[in-house]
C-alpha cells in the first residue's frame, strides 16, 4: 500500500438548521488505500454517515463542505459544484448501499430493469448486452435462476435477497470504492453472515475498496482490516482491527468496548457511558468526550488533543498518549483485551 486511493484532509462539514449552524464533521482526516476494508464505527449522530456521504456528493441540501479536501484520482471532491461533476463519480467510481433494501429499490419496476438502468447509465452498454450484463451480475451476487429473477419485482424477494439486488446495482458499474452504510442491520444473523461473505467475495472479484459504516462491533471484527472510531464529528482513533480491539487507546473506544454485553460478566452491571454526546451547535472545547469520561484529565477540558502515533498504522486523539500524561489504568475489559493483543500480535 503506497498512495491512498482516497484521502480526506481536515474536513469540516456544516449544516444550517433553522437559522443556526451545526458543525457535523470537525476536521476529520482519513486515508483509504486500494483493496482495503475500512470500518467506521460510532453512535448515531457521530457523523459517520455524513462523512462518507460527502465522498459522493450526497449531503442534504442544507449541508456543505466548509473547509478541507477530499482527494480522489487527482481531483478534490470537496470543491465539486453541481450534479454534472458528481455524475462522473457517484455510482460510477464510488457507489453506496444503504441499510434498508426495501426503500432503496423501486417497487414498481422489475429488479432486472433497475440493475440494467445502472449499467446503461454508467457503462454505455445498451439493450441486450446490458441485459446480459445485468443477469451476470445477479448470478455474481448469489441469486439462483437469474434469468427468471431478472423479470421479478422487489416484493417477490426476501430481505436478504433484496439486499443482494441492491449490492448487484452497486457493483454492476464496477466502482472503485463501495460504501456500505449499515448493510446488515435490518437482517437476521444467518443472513447477515451470508451478505458479509458475499461482499468479501465481490471485493476480490471486482477489486473493490470497501468502507463499512456500522455500530455493530461484531460485524467490524468480522470484516475490517482497519477501523476508524468516530465521536462527535471527529475520528478519535484509527488502526488495524487488531490494534483497535486489543490495544485501544482512546477513552471513548474503551467505553464502547466495555459496554458490550458480549464482553460483560453475567450478573454484574455493564459499563454504561453516562451523559449524552455534545451538542454540535455549540463550539466544542478540548476533547469532545471529556464530559462523559470519568478518567478525563484537566487538559481534556481545555485543549483539543492532537493525534499521537501508537504504531505506524495506529493513532489516537487523546492526551493520555502524551509522554507528560499521568498513567491512567484502562477498565478491566480493556486489560483483558490487551492480554489477547500480547498473545496474538506481538
Amino acid at each position, binding site marked *: 500500500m503506497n498512495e491512498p486511493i482516497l484521502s480526506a484532509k481536515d474536513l469540516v462539514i456544516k449544516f444550517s438548521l433553522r437559522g443556526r449552524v451545526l458543525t457535523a464533521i470537525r476536521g476529520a482526516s482519513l486515508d483509504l488505500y486500494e483493496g482495503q476494508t475500512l470500518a467506521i464505527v460510532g453512535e448515531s449522530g457521530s457523523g459517520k454517515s455524513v462523512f462518507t456521504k460527502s465522498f459522493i456528493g450526497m449531503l442534504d441540501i442544507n449541508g456543505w463542505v466548509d473547509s478541507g479536501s477530499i482527494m480522489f484520482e487527482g481531483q478534490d471532491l470537496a470543491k465539486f459544484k453541481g450534479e454534472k461533476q458528481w455524475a462522473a463519480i457517484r455510482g460510477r467510481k464510488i457507489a453506496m448501499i444503504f441499510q434498508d433494501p426495501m426503500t432503496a429499490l423501486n417497487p414498481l419496476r422489475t429488479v432486472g430493469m433497475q440493475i440494467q438502468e445502472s449499467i446503461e447509465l454508467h457503462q454505455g452498454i445498451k439493450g441486450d448486452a446490458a441485459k446480459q450484463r445485468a443477469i451476470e451480475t445477479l448470478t455474481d451476487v448469489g441469486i439462483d435462476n437469474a434469468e427468471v429473477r431478472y423479470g421479478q419485482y422487489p416484493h417477490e424477494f426476501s430481505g436478504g435477497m433484496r439486499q443482494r439486488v441492491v449490492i448487484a446495482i452497486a457493483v454492476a458499474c464496477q466502482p472503485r470504492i463501495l460504501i456500505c452504510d449499515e448493510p446488515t442491520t435490518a437482517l437476521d444473523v444467518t443472513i447477515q453472515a*451470508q451478505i458479509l461473505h458475499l461482499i468479501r467475495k465481490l471485493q476480490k472479484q471486482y477489486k473493490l475498496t470497501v468502507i463499512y459504516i456500522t455500530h455493530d462491533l461484531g460485524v467490524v471484527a468480522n470484516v475490517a482490516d482497519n477501523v476508524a472510531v468516530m465521536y462527535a464529528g471527529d475520528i478519535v482513533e484509527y488502526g488495524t482491527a487488531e490494534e483497535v480491539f486489543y490495544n485501544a487507546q482512546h477513552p471513548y473506544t474503551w467505553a464502547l468496548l466495555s459496554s458490550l454485553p458480549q464482553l460483560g460478566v453475567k450478573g454484574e452491571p455493564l459499563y454504561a457511558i453516562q451523559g449524552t454526546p455534545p451538542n454540535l451547535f455549540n463550539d466544542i472545547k478540548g476533547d469532545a468526550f471529556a464530559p462523559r469520561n470519568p478518567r478525563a484529565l484537566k487538559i481534556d477540558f481545555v485543549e483539543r488533543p492532537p493525534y499521537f502515533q501508537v504504531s505506524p498504522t495506529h493513532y489516537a486523539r487523546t492526551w493520555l498518549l502524551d509522554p507528560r500524561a499521568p498513567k491512567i489504568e484502562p477498565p478491566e475489559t480493556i486489560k483483558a483485551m490487551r492480554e489477547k493483543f500480547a498473545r*496474538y500480535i506481538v
Partner: protein
Amino acid sequence: MNKKQISNEVLLDVRNLRVEFRTKGKPFVAVDDVSFHIFRGETFGLVGESGSGKTTIGRAIVRINETAGGEIMFKGQQINGRVSKELDNEVTQKIQMIFQDPMASLNERAKVDYIVSEGLYNTKAYKDEADRAAKVEQALLAVGLLPEFASRFPHEFSGGQRQRIGVARALIMEPDFIIADEPISALDVSIRAQVLNLLADLQKSKDLTYMFIAHDLSVVRFITDRVAVICQGKIVELAETEELFKHPLHPYTRSLLSAVPVPDPVAEKRKRVLYYDPLSHDYSVDKPKWVEIRPGHYVLGNEPELEEYAMLAAK
C-alpha cells in the same frame, strides 16, 4: 456477586400453544404446538429470526392475539380463550410489555404524564388524582428519570430516555411479569448497556419475571437464565443459557450460534458459519418428539436425530 433469586414456582405455563392467522383461504400457522414454562424471578429468553413467531407468542400471552389451541396458565389460572372480566383485567395489569422501537411505541401527541398513566386510566387502578400523580412520579424515578419530565413530550427525549419511559409505563401497573420484545435492538450501543442494567436492577428491586424476546444472541446470553430457540413457529431447543451456548444440539441452534458476530477480530476471522437447511429433516414417517436429552435441556427431533443429539451431548 449475589445470585438473584429464582423460585421453583411456575409463574407462566404455556402448553401446546397454537396461533393461526387467517387471511382469505387456508390458515397460516404462526405458532405450532409450543410448550414452555417460566419460573418466578427468572429471565426467560425467546430467540428466533424474523417471522419465527416469537413476537406472536408474546402477544398471545397478553391476549392481543387469539389462540387456536393449547393453554396459557398464569399463576395457575388459564388466561387464553374466554375469561371473566376480572381475570382479563388482572392479566392486563400483571403482565406488561416493553416494545422494540421507543420512537414508534410512544404517542407523539401525548405528554409523558399521560403516556405513563394510560394503563392506570384504563384499569382505574388509582384512588384520586394525587394518587395517580404520585404513582407517575415513583415510576419515573424508578427508571432514572426526573419527575418533572412528566410535563414533556416524547420528542424532547433521547432514544435511551424514551425507552425508559416505555419501561416506566409498564412498571406503574406493578406487574409480576414483563414481556420485553427486542427492547434494545433499536438503541445505540452506548445506550444498550444503560437499559440492560436498568432491567436487571428492576428485576431485583421489584421481584420481576421477564420474557426477553430477541434475535441478538449475545445479549440473550448476558441477560437470560434459560433460553428457548424458536424456528418457523416451533420451539426446537430449550435449556439453561450456559448449557445451550456450550452444548447446542439442534442444527438450527448451532447455525444461529455460529453466525453471531463477536467483537474479537482474530476469533471472527477464524469462525466458520454453519448453514441450516430446514429440509434436512425427514419427518415424513418418523415424527419429531420433544425430549429432555440432558437434565433441563430439551430438543426436538425424531428417533435417529435424537440418537445423534445424545451422542453430541455426551461429548
